[in-house]
């Protein structure tokens, strides 16, 4: 069995950033495993620009952003395998892979989970109606268009105002298709404001809030859908049904961290993020298994994915150096205005970045980070939406060794 210091599962933005940073920290016996035939992950199909403003202070397309890391990997000769799927990861950090050259088993001192996320499907949402073709998730439609030169439809309606859905609205329009409307079940958009402006408003594509798809028509190809208004509990209101013709329905209704391998390795998941429960070292409940990027929690910008993975690499380096990391005994407890935080627990011995998302749009609020009934840190927010990740740096000097960290919002 081949021995590795670190095995990184996934050659997308998180995996690549972790690999490059680990190498710079002097950890060179690493292996990146990627199931596609090239590195880059989901960025390969994101041909629009807007990536890199935070990480590189310039705007790049997805492939360009990925290439910056791939170039580093190539320059440093960091070893990676493409066309290789990880079949299993054990609690003992034994990793089994499969590829055209066969089954292989490795033992790693540390494993980095960087598998990214997948899209919520029609079946998972339980959208009623018939099951014609022409219903695609936004990312799949994007892959068809940008990687396979394939047009999925001409007369399009989009359900969900997630960022990929809005980016696809623009992409479809540019390729001559008609995008009739975007419907969002929530009373607020779920994607970033810049995408609403640049992908919908600029092209005259209407966005309707508090509406959802309640029926799907067509027994071969999609012929149309029914949309209905929803009440404040998001339940469709009878009598508000409206039938619309279309040959394609694009779903941009959320992303789910891809944690099947993590579960098999015994990693404990957070029911809110659907990712691993981690401490400020990005270490999961299994000693020596770390996670960062969209496999940990869905990010709004790839820049934050890279930066998170780079921080993870620093702690993996510490872990390899000291053979263990301080135990995280301090829980982070958000109130109901906060959907989740990452990390979910800390040791109290380090400065760290607290990432969080609000559970509903908030205005003119204050986020207080408290410990033992003392306010450690305050962040004023004039406007917060669930689409945006909020990051608050916490310095170790203000932390105490005991007592849960509470995240309280007052409006």
């Amino acid at each position, binding site marked *: 069995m081949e021995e590795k210091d670190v095995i990184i599962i996934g050659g997308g933005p998180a995996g690549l950033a972790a690999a490059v940073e680990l190498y710079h920290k002097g950890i060179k016996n690493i292996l990146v495993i990627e199931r596609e035939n090239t590195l880059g992950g989901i960025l390969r199909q994101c041909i629009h620009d807007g990536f890199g403003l935070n990480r590189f202070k310039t705007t790049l397309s997805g492939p360009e952003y990925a290439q910056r890391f791939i170039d580093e990997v190539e320059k440093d000769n960091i070893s990676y395998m493409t066309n290789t799927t990880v079949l299993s990861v054990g609690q003992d950090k034994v990793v089994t892979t499969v590829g055209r050259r066969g089954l292989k088993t490795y033992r790693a001192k540390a494993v980095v989970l960087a598998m990214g996320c997948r899209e919520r499907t029609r*079946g998972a*949402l339980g959208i009623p109606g018939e099951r014609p*073709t022409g219903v695609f998730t936004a990312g799949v439609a994007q892959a068809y268009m940008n990687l396979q030169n*394939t047009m999925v439809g001409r007369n399009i309606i989009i359900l969900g105002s997630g960022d990929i859905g809005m980016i696809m609205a623009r992409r479809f329009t540019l390729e001559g298709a008609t995008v009739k409307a975007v419907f969002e079940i929530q009373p607020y958009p779920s994607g970033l404001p810049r995408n609403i402006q640049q992908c919908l408003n600029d092209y005259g594509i209407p966005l309707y809030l508090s509406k959802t798809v*309640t*029926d799907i028509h067509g027994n*071969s190809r999609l012929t149309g859908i029914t949309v209905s208004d929803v009440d404040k509990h998001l339940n469709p209101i009878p009598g508000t049904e409206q039938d619309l013709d279309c040959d394609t329905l694009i779903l941009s209704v959320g992303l789910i961290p891809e944690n099947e391998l993590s579960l098999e390795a015994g990693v404990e998941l957070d029911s809110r993020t659907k990712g691993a429960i981690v401490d400020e070292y990005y270490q999961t409940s299994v000693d020596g298994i770390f996670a960062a990027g969209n496999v940990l929690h869905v990010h709004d910008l790839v820049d934050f994915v890279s930066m998170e993975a780079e921080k993870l690499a620093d702690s993996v380096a510490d872990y390899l150096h000291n053979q263990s990391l301080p135990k995280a005994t301090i829980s982070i407890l958000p109130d109901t205005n906060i959907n989740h935080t990452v990390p979910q627990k800390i040791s109290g011995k380090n400065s760290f970045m607290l990432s969080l998302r609000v559970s509903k749009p908030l205005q003119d609020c204050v986020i207080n980070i408290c410990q033992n009934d003392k306010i450690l840190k305050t962040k004023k927010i004039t406007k917060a939406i669930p689409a945006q990740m909020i990051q608050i740096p916490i310095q170790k000097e203000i932390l105490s060794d005991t007592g849960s960290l509470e995240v309280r919002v007052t409006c």
Partner: protein
Amino acid sequence: MERFDALIIGGGVVGSATAREMARNKLKIGVLEKNLDICYETSGRNSGVVHAGFAYDVGSLKAKLCVEGNNEFGKIAEELDVPFKRTGKVLVGNSDEELRSLQNIIQQGEKNGVKGLTIIDKKKLHEIVPAVQGEFALLSPSSGITDPFQYTIALAENAAKNGVKYYFDHEVTSIHKNPDKTYTVMTTHGEFRTRWIINSAGLGCGKISEMMGISGYRIIGSKGDYIILDKRTGPLLPLPVYPVPSNTYMGIHVTPTTDGNVIVGPDAEAVTDFSYYGVPQKNMDYLAKSASNLWPCIRKADYIRNYSGILPKWVDDNGVIQDFKIEANIDLAPRTINLIGIESPGLTAALPIARHVIKLMSQQETFKPNEDFCPRRKSFVRFAQQSIEVKKALIAENPDYGEIVCRCEKITKAEILNAIHNPLGVNTMTGIKYRTRSMMGRCQGGYCQMRIAKMIEEELGIDTKDVLYARQGSNLFAGKIRNI
């Protein structure tokens, strides 16, 4: 015009079982299927349960053929290389009245020849299925589960291997009697001449019966909706769990699949449109609520898909559901076998039904045995189910086994290629799906559909815009964006 000894109309599980059994004789046999593959209708849209036979009236064909089918299912599954688990099943009750119902079912079942039916107490019930809610249950040890797609496909492939010709996209439009004791069968894609006709058209049995000259059968559809749950739920359900049935309806149940998912359903709604398979929201909500009383493990987060199926039921003038009707009506339609109202337990009873059909034919004509008939059929090797050693050997021999195409179900390129070049010549996406389980996992093809569509294009030389999902008109794509 192609001439046949026998044409079977409808390639579902009964039609394909009949084709396979008939191929034991020296006959030229054809199957006319209106869809682009088998399993598009009732045979592929059900619970996948191999029934024991206790639920049917004593002396009925349903009872007799079901018990016979159940008894031999283990042997048949081995012969045709299809998944089958004799899991047993429980009918869970709470009240004294339900206990009496279950005792009556046991009596009926024993008269039908079903073995081992017993009432078990709460403690025993919870030993078998810890998660279930109920005071007692009827345990039927001979019940089981199979994969209805693989079973139907195996029967059809074995029939084809033994010389039966399958015609897809051939919907029968009319049937004419010729003076020379043959029939001309007109279809949407050409004419055929045949000496025998077998009507195994399922939902279309009434229509075909009329075309053959036998009128008067009233067929209603009973539509049932289902929800499929993630494989995470499989370990919580070792065997099918049913409520105590009413006279006409088995009730909403939860059933494990041979692949480790759980299916919830079906409800039962009388329908006249036999082509509408939509699942309404209220039905989904009702299924989840109703089944949760039995087995409180149904969470929306585990939904991966929903589907529905329609059973063809033959009813009398009062709407009372009748037994299977399998007739040779020599006066109205000589040399035809008419199969009417083949609903549940048609999957379990398919081969006994087929033998019954051939027995009726043999009463009119003596057939020569086909010495070359081979009853065995082997499926391709399924990578995910193999040991590490076998996996290594498979890849060494064929590197395509090292390429995972479907990440959820761990289906390899070798398996997809095998399915694309299937013996029946089916070239739709669902054809690949039913044969391999790709696109059936939790991401619902998000990862592999694109790869499979491309493989179909490349392997079969089909244009992007012409790739079909399931039916005619179910084109997946508008075409290429640009010519490059």
